[in-house]
């Protein structure tokens, strides 16, 4: 068992006001799963991801990662877990603007216990893995959005984490680039990487094996992707649209040939 979450609550306090972002979430994620977390804006997806990534602590409940109870850990211990077990990909990339691609990817290794002596070599390898072998010395400002997110993915992978977490990794990218990133995720998953991504897009969720839907801080459905009713409906609709589009194209084509023949 990689991730076990029991009765997880998160309450934000702003002055006297309390926002109950998570209200008793139970989730289990096994090794080598590819999970998509979906839900409306404000449903608690990012809150959940931040806790999964040990960036934030739950107000109540238990989160066990690879058998270790993270809800009992202090700041230094959590930092070590983030370094060793977790690769996090942010929507806004979060690259250091003055550092080159390799330097950005090396960052987790700098803080790693295993030592950073082979860091550069490992960073280069990770960049090659995401298809950026020819952009090692480029700075973020010299790269496209898709390339930046690839650098971020390489950084998340470089320390060989047990889970890869991505909160709307394609939120800032156009659809073609998003598709590229998703293909990369799929390839990583095929290599055995456990992946959890947050997304609003059904087509992106379509690459996953399992969809967890949240509403108002609760899990409202947790099913394999091909059994998820919402996703199935979307797929059918998309197929229908595709079908009509194809038909239209055909009719336009045939009228064109007819016109040409006349």
């Amino acid at each position, binding site marked *: 068992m990689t991730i076990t979450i029991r009765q997880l609550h998160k309450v934000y306090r702003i002055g006297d006001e309390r926002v109950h972002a998570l209200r008793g979430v139970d989730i289990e994620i096994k090794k080598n799963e590819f999970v998509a977390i979906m839900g409306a804006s404000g449903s608690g997806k990012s809150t959940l991801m931040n806790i999964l990534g040990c960036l934030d602590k739950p107000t109540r409940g238990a989160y066990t990662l690879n058998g270790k109870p993270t809800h009992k850990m202090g700041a230094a211990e959590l*930092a070590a877990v983030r370094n060793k077990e977790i690769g996090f990909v942010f929507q806004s990339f*979060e690259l250091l603007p*003055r550092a080159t691609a390799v330097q950005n990817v090396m*960052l987790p290794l*700098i*803080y790693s216990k295993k030592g950073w002596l082979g860091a550069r070599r490992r960073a280069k390898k990770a960049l090659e893995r995401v298809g950026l072998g020819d952009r090692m010395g480029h700075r973020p400002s010299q790269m496209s959005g898709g390339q930046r997110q690839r650098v971020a993915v390489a950084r998340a992978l470089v320390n060989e984490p047990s889970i890869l977490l991505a909160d709307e990794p394609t939120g800032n990218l156009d659809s073609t680039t998003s598709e590229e990133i998703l293909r990369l995720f799929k390839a990583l998953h095929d290599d055995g990487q456990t992946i959890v991504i947050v997304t609003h897009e059904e087509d992106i969720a379509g690459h996953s094996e399992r969809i967890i839907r949240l509403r108002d801080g609760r899990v409202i459905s947790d099913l394999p992707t091909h059994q998820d009713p919402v996703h199935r409906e979307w797929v059918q609709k998309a197929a229908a649209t595709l079908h009509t589009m194809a038909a239209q194209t055909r009719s336009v084509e045939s009228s064109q040939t007819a016109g040409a023949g006349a």
Partner: protein
Amino acid sequence: MFVLRFLQTVLLALSQLRANKGRSFLTALGVIIGVASVTAVVAALTGMKEFVLGEFESVGAKYVYIDGTVPPEMENKVSWLDVQLQLDEIDELAEYASSIEHISPQWRLTVDVAVNAERLQNVRALGIRPEWHDVETRSVILGRPFNANDDQDRLNVCLINDKAIEELNLDKDPIGESIFIAGRHFQIVGVVETKAVSAMFGGGTPQTEVFVPFGTAMKLNPRGWINMAGGMMRDTSDAENTKAEIRYILRKSRGLKPDEPDTFVVEVLQTYIDQFNSIAGGITAIAGGVVSISLLVGGVGIMNIMLVSVSERTREIGLRKAVGARPGIVLLQFLVEAVTLCVAGGFIGLVVGQLLTLAVQSIPGAALDGAVIPGWAIAVAFIFSAGTGVLFGMFPAIKAARLDPIEALRHE
């Protein structure tokens, strides 16, 4: 492992400072100015000290001056002639004062000196004992010094200085020549170097000097008196003891009652040196206070800029934490940055201080040629700079270390 990580943190901090060269320099300016000005002041002080001590040294730190004097309370009761040193008192001191190595009384005369056609009036002449050669550090450059015979047999022999050779138009090697002193024949047996007594001790342009044996001088003018006695201490560190011993012997021989004041003075040059040293120490302490204040001001500037830097780099700190930087490492990184800034400032300050010192050395007529930044000042400058970095870098560093990674990443 830890050393490597520490080195790496230092490198990271340095690259951070390099990325903000202009700002780093301006930030360190407070420390630079503080260290530069204070090292220059300390250097100038060292130069002054060397000069003054050099002046003292030319007379001799072990030099003891003894003379009779009328204390203010007794001004109308005794004449200054009654309190002059007596020969038996000198002998007593020579015999019993164990802290004194040599002592020689001086019998001062003013005489006319003549050789052939040359005639000098009112020349300073001193009657001295052979011990004088040990008390006054003046070398005999030609001929021989006085010996016990000269004194006991009251021989008509004399020593002159080279200024006298010039003024009396004598031969370059005047040993054995005969001159008239107070109308009597004297044979020149030696030439004593002319000592440029510094202006600090009332010296001026060197004058003709003539020395005769003490006994002979008494014979020349029996109604004269012992002008003073010069002595030589055995040990420089024993100034107060020496004074006490001389006072004890003289008071006893003069039969002074406990409530009566001394009718003589004993001065040991070393006590002046000690006084000067303590004054110089005081000035150094004041300079130290100034450096503390300027480092304080510099430190506040550094704290301010470090706080700005922490809030500017909040997102970066958040990211570093997100990928696994422990709070301790973040603390170390900012602390090292502040310390590096301060120590670099201290180093530049020392360089500027050295330039100022060179400028001070070349101030004409200031007698500060010996100005130099002492080693301890360099060490103190570095230790204080580093301390300032730790002290004022601590608060911003703690602030950075305690940032919540998620909140830091959300920071705009």
